[in-house]
């Protein structure tokens, strides 16, 4: 048991956070609220990350007016992939037989401060991926 240092959001976590009527809105908010409470008390800061491929999949354009809710609630920082990161994601995708976006989530988790938590609705695929990561990652269902 270790306190998380980073949280990586997947597509549905973004959708749930950005839509007040989404059935998982309140549950996803509970994680963001927990992160915020801890950061207020200045324990080891927890950062929230979103791979840019996930933003594309989720249609999260930070400059769009309809993104203002998720922009403000998540305060997530973009994870931009360079060539080496793309190579790693490609290997993960082949090894775990998952989608391109899921592989980028896993690569982003691996590159984030550890211990890392992946918030996802796709627990099975993400657990398969997490088992392949250096340092692993905790997979939590929203």
């Amino acid at each position, binding site marked *: 048991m270790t306190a998380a240092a980073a949280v990586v959001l997947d597509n549905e976590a973004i959708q749930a956070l950005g839509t007040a009527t989404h059935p998982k809105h309140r549950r996803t*908010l509970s994680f963001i609220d927990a992160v915020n409470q801890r950061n207020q008390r200045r324990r080891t800061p927890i950062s929230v990350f979103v791979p840019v491929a996930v933003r594309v999949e989720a249609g999260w354009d930070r400059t769009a007016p309809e993104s203002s809710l998720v922009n403000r609630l998540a305060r997530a920082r973009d994870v931009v992939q360079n060539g080496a990161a793309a190579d790693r994601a490609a290997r993960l995708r082949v090894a775990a037989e998952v989608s391109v976006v899921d592989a980028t989530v896993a690569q982003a988790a691996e590159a984030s401060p550890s211990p890392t938590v992946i918030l996802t609705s796709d627990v099975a695929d993400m657990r398969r991926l997490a088992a392949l990561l250096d340092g692993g990652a905790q997979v939590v269902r929203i």
Partner: protein
Amino acid sequence: MATREVELFRWLDRLDRDDESIVTSVRQPAALREALRVAVDLGMDATVNDATVRALRDRLETFAQRMALESHYSQHPEARPSLAEVALAAAELDDNPLSQEPALLRRAADEVVAVKPDASADDVLVWAAALHSVRAS
């Protein structure tokens, strides 16, 4: 959201897109400055400037996020997670075995606010761990 709050988010959102920086003078305790220098030598951050900017940014982001959460909860009260739900989320983030005991977390949340009305999710986890320990003994 009020104009000043919108302005705060606009500036924060520019942090990742904008390389513009300014030189500023900040009055700070001499001991803080020296402690920062030593901490940077010990590997806390690359430079004193990086450490200062990072600490300030983290504090601003947390403040702004709390404001956004409270504003959202006031508009959508049904979206506000209970203290027990936030404690459950905190336990899941930590892979804490208490995440498997939502009933115990609900009880702990009920009890802890009786003695600490502004209890946090981590306060609930400590209380729940104590309840768990008593139960096991």
